[in-house]
């Protein structure tokens, strides 16, 4: 069963009078429980691709279905609800809320996006913090932890709402190689344990050894699909 299905999608940005074709006639399908990477140089269209999968943007043409929903038909609020219901996000700059503690950051989507009872919420947050190895740091503020730790918190936060898909745009770009490798291993482990599909972008080919499927994008076009059996 396909979680994401895109058929001949194109994305064009208008900058003044100039039209920039960020994605060109891309068709692909991503199925459940996969660990998928989009690789390519800066400006190749990886982030645009993830923005479309993340229901943050709409394709200019073509059909994009995420979890059997045609995202072109959703309005602003419906898209927000859809994201909260089905998707998780990990950002390159972590984008954690600095005034909240590690625990509260992970708890945030369960309060603001999905409302669940306090006891269940607490259990969920603690188990995720344990899973990413941040339980002992739960009461610290975000500026009191390292970059690698921040990204682990961001991973835990992305998983709190039990999303079907987690999208990570360059999740290791701001990390040193060792931290980047640990974050990749953690995402892979959680993907197989929880059954969540992870889709991330990177321009660093060294960290994609763990992935199931690699899509290579250049100049907005999908040029290669590689499937690995790890």
């Amino acid at each position: 069963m396909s979680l994401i299905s895109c058929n001949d999608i194109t994305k064009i940005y208008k900058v003044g009078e100039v039209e920039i074709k960020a994605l060109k006639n891309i068709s692909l399908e991503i199925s459940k429980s996969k660990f998928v990477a989009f690789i390519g140089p800066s400006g190749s269209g990886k982030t645009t691709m993830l923005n479309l999968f993340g229901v943050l943007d709409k394709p200019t043409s073509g059909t994009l279905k995420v979890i059997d929903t045609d995202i072109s038909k959703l309005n602003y609020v419906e898209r927000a609800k859809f994201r909260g219901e089905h998707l998780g996000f990990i950002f390159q700059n972590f984008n954690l809320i600095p005034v909240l503690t590690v625990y509260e950051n992970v708890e945030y989507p369960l309060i603001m996006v999905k409302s669940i009872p306090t006891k269940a919420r607490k259990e969920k947050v603690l188990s995720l913090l344990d899973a990413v190895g941040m339980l002992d740091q739960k009461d610290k503020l975000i500026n009191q932890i390292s970059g690698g730790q921040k990204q682990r918190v961001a991973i835990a936060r992305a998983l709190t709402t039990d999303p079907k898909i987690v999208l990570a745009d360059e999740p290791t770009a701001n990390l040193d190689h060792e931290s980047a490798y640990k974050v990749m291993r953690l995402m892979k482990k959680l993907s197989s344990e929880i059954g969540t599909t992870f889709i991330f972008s990177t321009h660093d080919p060294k960290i994609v050894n763990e992935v199931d499927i690699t899509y290579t994008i250049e100049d907005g076009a999908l040029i290669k699909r590689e499937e690995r059996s790890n």
Partner: protein
Amino acid sequence: MFNIIKISFRNLYRQKRRSFLTIGIVAFGVLAVLLFTATAGSFKNFMISEITDSMLGHIQIHGKGYVSSLDNLPLDNTIKATQINKMAQILDEIPEIESYTYRILLGGMVSNYLESTSAKISAIIPAKEKKVAPLLEARLQEGNFLRKGEILLPEIIAKGFKSKIGDDIVLIATNVDGSVNGLPLKISGIMESVVGPTGKYGYIHFDDAKSILRMDEMEVSEVAIRLKNFNDLEKVYSILNEKLGSIKNKNDKPIFEIHTWEKLSPFYSIANMIDMMSLFIKIILIGIVLVSIMNVMIMAVYERTKEIGSISAMGTLPSKIRLMFLFEGLFLGIYGSIIGIIISLIAIFIVNISHITVSFGRNSNILLQPKVSLAQIGLTALIVIFVAIIAVLEPAFKASKLEPIEALRQN
């Protein structure tokens, strides 16, 4: 909701200096409003009390058309005995009225046998007058209050005549028929002049006025009324208007005219000016709160654009993002109000214990005793909180409408 409030509250601590500065500006605005309202209110209440309690009373009743010709003190437009009885019955039935008294106002000449000068005189019934104008006696600069055969001379005439207590004076007046009569009187006291329509009048006994004016029956120029509660002014005025207004003469015209102190004293326009200034200060406060909170919240949205993008990407609904910023602005308003109210109460306390006096006209020792009511405090706080919400609406809506993809791109 609690968690949205928690996040909003903590957001105040991101830019501590800026938040405290904004709260300080709002608090200063609240201080300006409450201190001015309390001080100006104290001055206004002092003056109103001085005018109503030392001469006018709270409400006056005259014969129709009397007030418009008050400068001439006409004796042909008095309220006659039969009308007085009807009116007294009505006044006795109104529970809000504490007391009322009759006065005859007349113009004449006073002479100390060496010099003469014109004078305006209010003839009063001393016992009743004290109930309606309890501060009248306090205006005595020297001497004793009035008895029959005596006069309370206004200080301006007493100074001109170089009169002393116990000196003899002759009052000469023309009655309604045109006959000129004189009455020897003894000076029992010298009255301090005050601001107001009858502030420089002399006083004689009601019976002496009847005598000099050759009045066989009871006639009065005005009826002065004191209320149990000053706040019932409009209510009693309406009742009197309705009940006395229905009493008509043969030509089906109303016999009486009723005025509150406001219509009789020029100080009312000054009181209105004080209220206007109070309103302007409130408008300035609104401006201060609006500009400072809007400014700080616009900055907050600008600085947190990327964060708004990320929480929006996670699926936070626009309404919740809006609420988060609304609460933040609300907290600034609430904090500013609370601190401003505390500082204001301290400032009012200090002014009260400092015994500061000001001058107004001939009153050189008006003691400022600022007081602020709970209603005024509540109103000011409500204005601030309401304006804080208004100020934050635009930035909050802007934040909630940000496209996450655009917001996430911002550095």
